């Protein structure tokens, strides 16, 4: 254990905060889907990795910048999400209880297919700016993390605007708060679920692209990422997007801090400890609400 100097402390905050923004984007889709559909999309991590691989391939063969490829992957994932909800999840009875199994199966199938195509070699997308960094007042700001943070924030802002100010957004919020009343107010909630799942997956597409320039990945890293994103939304409060933002930043900073103060290997564990203690005090998470099933 080492006590970091002030300079190192601030530097760690910066690095952790930047990566926390990317976590926030990844988790926002997951929590949005849960909020509307009460479905935990266990395949979210696998879709992140799929997004990362598509970004990788687009970069290798077409020299498309990983950030630009978001413009391709997001619409594709949006469509895929719509189809998955429409033709798979909406067909199972009691989605609240059984969807975990179905999406877990989806995660394993995706991991299997990715493993078959790409093997287990760890990959990373390395555009020309991979190792560049800005120096500001003696603090380092790695370019990939800055880009990741900025892009993530932009997409979260877009998501917020959609939720707050559009027709779809209002219907999504209404369905989150009371699905039955929403139906009785003329909202086709199965349609809304499909669009929500689509929106959620498209954030995974963007998250995957950002992941690919910051972290190395292989098909089995999906388990890592679903664990991370799930813990974030549990800590933030299931269904709460602001909660996910706070929890994601907390996780980012904590991971970074632990790897400096203790060792890299401890960084996930410290976050889980924090998660456990939070849940003992606030079982609903930081900004979550206690869910009561209405009749």
């Amino acid at each position, binding site marked *: 254990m080492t006590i970091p100097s002030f300079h190192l402390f601030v530097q760690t905050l910066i690095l952790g905060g930047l990566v926390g923004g990317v976590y926030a984007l990844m988790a926002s889709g997951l929590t949005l889907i849960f909020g509307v559909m009460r479905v935990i999309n266990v395949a979210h991590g696998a879709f992140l990795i799929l997004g990362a691989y598509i970004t990788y391939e687009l970069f290798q063969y077409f020299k498309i910048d990983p950030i630009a490829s978001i413009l391709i992957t997001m619409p594709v994932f949006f469509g895929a999400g719509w189809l998955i909800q429409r033709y798979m999840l909406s067909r199972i009875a009691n989605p609240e209880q059984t969807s975990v199994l179905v999406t877990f199966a989806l995660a394993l199938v995706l991991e299997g297919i990715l493993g078959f195509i790409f093997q287990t070699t760890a990959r990373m997308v390395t555009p020309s700016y991979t190792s560049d960094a800005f120096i500001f007042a003696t603090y380092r700001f790695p370019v990939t993390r800055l880009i990741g943070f900025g892009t993530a924030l932009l997409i979260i802002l877009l998501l917020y605007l959609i939720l707050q100010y559009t*027709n779809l957004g209002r219907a999504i919020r209404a369905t989150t708060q009371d699905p039955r*009343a929403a*139906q009785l107010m003329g909202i086709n909630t199965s349609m*809304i679920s499909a669009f929500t799942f689509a929106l959620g997956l498209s954030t995974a597409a963007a998250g995957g692209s950002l992941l690919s320039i910051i972290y190395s990945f292989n098909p089995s890293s999906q388990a890592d990422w679903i664990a991370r994103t799930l813990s974030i939304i549990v800590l933030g409060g299931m269904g709460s997007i602001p909660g996910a933002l706070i929890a994601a930043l907390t996780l980012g900073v904590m991971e970074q801090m632990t790897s400096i103060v203790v060792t890299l290997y401890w960084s996930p564990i410290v976050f889980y400890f924090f998660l456990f203690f939070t849940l003992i005090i606030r079982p609903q998470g930081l900004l979550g609400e206690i869910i009561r099933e209405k009749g």
Partner: protein
Amino acid sequence: MLITENITKTFGGIKAVDDCSIKVAQGLITGLIGPNGSGKTTLFNMVTGLYKPDAGKISLKGNQIQGLKPSKIYHQGIGRTFQITRLFWKMTVLENMIVPVRQIGWQTLLSRGVKKHEEEQAMELLHWVGLSQYRDEEVRKLSFGQQKLIEFVAVLMSDPDLILLDEPAGGVNPVMIEKMMEMVDDLNSKGKTFLLVEHNMRLVMELCQHIIVLDHGQKIAEGVPSEVQNNPLVLEAYLGSTQNANASA
């Protein structure tokens, strides 16, 4: 306007609604009364599509609607309020008013949340119930009575032909009840049809032009208020059989 033919709904062997046929005539305020557990709310839930009837038919303006999705039925012209309000309590009053008027489709996904003419219509209705100053407040900050009024006018936003009111007076103070009765009366004189479930008998007798009485899921009587009031079957359902009372005495 609304006709149910022999509809039945069973929950685990108990017939909540049993072979029930009722008619709601156009332009009238019809009251649906009966002791607790007589199947009133279940009937409402079938009419609005929350439950599928196990048997029987429901038709609205001549179109069969049984088994349709609630949102479909809503857009066919049935609006409904709840015993305990089900507003979206983290949304503002104005947003709650706008929710009911929109259909969601690919084309309108990203259209503006609140349009000018919708806002005007909503404000007019809020003025009418005297709550326009709360337009940007979150619904949860208002009193229960105020929420009931908002739910009531939100239903009017989409101009339904038939309005179902589930205990409009339940938990509401007497002044507010008067107000609500006046509004229903007023809307009825403009041609709106109402079906209401209510335990406040004075309200039912004064407001309704036709009354249907349910007991154990079946219709046991109907008619104008004075007929129903003096029907021995109705008294029995509410107060217990007089013969049993004699026997035990």
